[in-house]
């Protein structure tokens, strides 16, 4: 388990403020946030290589705030790898352990064995990352701190290393705290996500919760929500049993029905692009509460997905479709479409 209580730490002009997070033992935690949010500082403070100014750090339930890093039984992998350039790859991997067999196993499983005879200086960025991961795992830590460890890996190797690490984490019951900018990675690997900004925790919870129900419009935009509208929410009806009120959100020509525990006030509506269904004609009777007419203004292909921007009375509504669906519907600029959104997919914040 990793826990921080009201953690404060200063790193030059930057500071962490009152950071309280709890990651259960054996979980994979994701730390998200813009550049300069304090993600690396948080990892370094947990590792003990940065001095805590206030609050406390608990590992495995024990207060380790004043325990030296070498006695915390954890591993850290930085984005740059920080392989020791005066040592060989093999010496790097075995640096922190006497258990050579286990170090060799880690190197094998991560695909670093073939690199053992190479000089550190000749390794590519991705190869360095793999060796750095093997080096961190060689002393059998039960807590692993990862600072964008897959950033320099090519897509094939990234998939392999992610899979191996996930398997190792489950086999060994490791607790992992992982800084990433890759939302897909966060969704795939993470059991728990922490969003930092300006040295503070803005939101934390299961990744799906963060992506589906961002706390603020800024969080929604940072997490890549395609549609964030500023407008006015009015409670239409109060639920008596399930606590979910029906709310109408209005901005310009766009009117949306949402359900949840909301109040009548100025707010933001967030809709993820993949929650919008597009059709060429109005559907028949349907359970969807939001049926919106519009005109396609742009179709942009993003790999296997199509990003379709629909003009709704001057407001852009972005839907994410498979490129096959977009082709079957014949979507192109100027085509009239009907967008359908279920009320629970509209999140107000």
């Amino acid at each position, binding site marked *: 388990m990793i826990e921080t209580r009201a953690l404060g730490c200063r790193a030059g002009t930057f500071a962490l403020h009152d950071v309280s997070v709890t990651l259960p033992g054996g979980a994979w935690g994701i730390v998200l946030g813009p550049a300069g949010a304090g993600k690396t500082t948080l990892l370094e403070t947990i*590792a*003990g290589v940065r001095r805590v100014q206030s609050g406390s750090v608990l590992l495995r339930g024990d207060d380790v705030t004043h325990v030296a*890093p*070498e006695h915390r039984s954890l591993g850290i992998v930085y984005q740059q790898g920080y392989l020791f350039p005066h040592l060989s790859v093999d010496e790097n991997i075995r*640096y*922190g352990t006497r258990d050579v067999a286990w170090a060799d196993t880690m190197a094998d499983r991560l695909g670093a064995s073939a690199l053992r005879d190479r000089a550190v200086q000749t390794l590519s960025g991705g190869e360095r990352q793999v060796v750095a991961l093997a*080096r961190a795992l060689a*002393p059998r830590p039960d807590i692993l701190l990862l600072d964008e460890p897959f950033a320099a890996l090519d897509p094939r190797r990234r998939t392999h290393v992610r899979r191996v690490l996930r398997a190792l984490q489950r086999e060994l019951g490791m607790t992992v705290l992982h800084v990433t900018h890759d939302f897909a990675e966060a969704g795939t690997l993470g059991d728990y996500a922490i969003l930092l900004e300006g040295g503070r925790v803005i939101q934390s919870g299961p990744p799906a919760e963060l992506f589906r129900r961002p706390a603020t419009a800024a969080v929604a935009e940072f997490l890549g929500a395609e549609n964030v509208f500023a407008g006015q929410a009015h409670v239409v009806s109060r639920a008596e049993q399930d606590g979910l009120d029906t709310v109408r959100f209005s901005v310009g020509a766009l009117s949306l029905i949402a359900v949840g525990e909301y109040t009548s006030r100025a707010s933001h509506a967030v809709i993820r692009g993949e929650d919008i269904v597009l059709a060429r004609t109005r559907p028949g009777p349907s359970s969807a509460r939001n049926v919106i007419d519009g005109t396609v203004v742009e179709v942009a292909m993003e790999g296997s997905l199509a990003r379709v921007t629909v003009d709704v009375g001057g407001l852009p509504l972005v839907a994410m479709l498979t490129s096959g669906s977009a082709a079957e519907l014949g979507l192109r600029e100027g085509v009239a479409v009907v967008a359908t959104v279920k009320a629970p997919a509209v999140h107000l914040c």
Partner: protein
Amino acid sequence: MNHRTSHRIATSGVALGSLMLLALLVLPVGMLVMRGGVDGVRQLGSDPELRASLALTAFTATAATMITVLLGTPLAWLLARGRMPAGTLVSALLDLPLLIPHPVAGIALLLAFGRASPIGGTLERAGLALVGSPFAIGLAMLFVAAPLYVSAAREAIARVDHRYESVARTLGDSPWRAAWRVTRPLSSRGLLAAGVVMWARAVSEFGAIVILTYNPKVVSILSYDRFNAYGLDAALPVAAVLVLLALVPLLVLRSLRAHAALGEPVR
């Protein structure tokens, strides 16, 4: 005046200024070596006093440098990593010997370690008289040159990203062990260069040594002594030998810089 003409004038002015400064620095030393170099090298074979003086200078400078490397490298690490309490004050104090005239440094050393001082008096009663001994020469060399070593070593260590040490710590190393296993090898070229600079400075020291120990004579004092006693022609070969002795570490340093990116940070 068009842009190209003004650019040419500026370039010519800079080139001329650089040449003048270079001539000012190289000319006296060059003339000294040209006039006394051959005689100095020849005299090494026939002048036992010069040979003894040269050996004494090299020995005391080496001893002072080795002691400083031993004591000054951990201090430089503490300063570079911001682990030294009142680090700014300590840095300022370390620079102090560089700022005072060297004869004044000699007087200060005499006050602290002379016969009349508690330390000097105790040592003399124990049979170890500092003043007038090679120990005092080494002490004077250390006093004036050690700040150069600590300062350069601190820079060399600071160029090594502290995260190498952080990684080593999470792999089980104590702070000193991480510094020894990781930072020391990564900063070794810079540390060697710092040692070379200190050694060269120690070899050429005169002002502080002349106050503490006139005899036995280091090369700088021997050169001064012969100039006073016998005039320029007698002093020239000795002075040229001193210049050649200081030139050796300088060439080593340049060679190090040519073979490796000495000033590049290790990231």
